[in-house]
């Protein structure tokens, strides 16, 4: 099944063209984190400190993905 991906700030440099990715039924955020690290090993350090949001809600590593989930990868924020 496919999920949609949104990248922001520094993480965009690692996945410039990746808008969706195929995951398996039952895969959670931790699986996605591993898949993205595998796709771009140089992203490992920033992925480790990034939060993930599904449909605009921050989720934990054990959150299970569903078909069509919109997943945002959020590097450490720096507003203000």
């Amino acid at each position, binding site marked *: 099944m496919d999920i949609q991906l949104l990248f922001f*700030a*520094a993480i965009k440099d690692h996945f410039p063209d990746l808008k969706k990715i195929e995951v398996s039924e039952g895969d959670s955020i931790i699986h996605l984190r591993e898949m993205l690290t595998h796709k771009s090993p140089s992203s490992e350090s920033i992925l480790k400190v990034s939060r993930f*949001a599904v449909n*605009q809600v921050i989720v934990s*590593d054990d959150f299970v993905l569903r078909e069509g989930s919109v997943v*945002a990868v959020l590097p*450490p924020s720096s*507003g*203000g």
Partner: protein
Amino acid sequence: MSVLETSSHISSSPLFVSSELPDIPEMGGFVVFSGIVRNLNEGKKVTHLEYEAYAPMADEMIRAILADACKKWDLLHANCIHRVGKLEISEIAVIVETGSIHRAEAYESNRYIIDRVKHEVPIWKKEFYFDGSSQWSKGCVHESH
């Protein structure tokens, strides 16, 4: 006591500190914090900044932070607007306003709001330097995710 609502907490237009106070007769203390683009960061001369936000989520999170502040303190007014896009030196990046009967609540809640906005809300800052280089701010690392 109602908190003034705004339609959006994320703005691509310049921000200005208003000389007009909210029209709330019970209000005895009003605090405004403005975060300003400065020309120096960690020893490097900065020419300008660019702020990026996951706008719909950032807007909702700021709304929730303001609501939390209103639960913790007895506020008559609370608002926060954060700028996105290209900002020049001395432009305002963020404004937080709080108003209450007494000053203590206005001061404390204002600090609470800006600290949470800075640490939690999906907004990122890219710094551009005089030497032509640029860099995303490392930001605040979260203990859990």
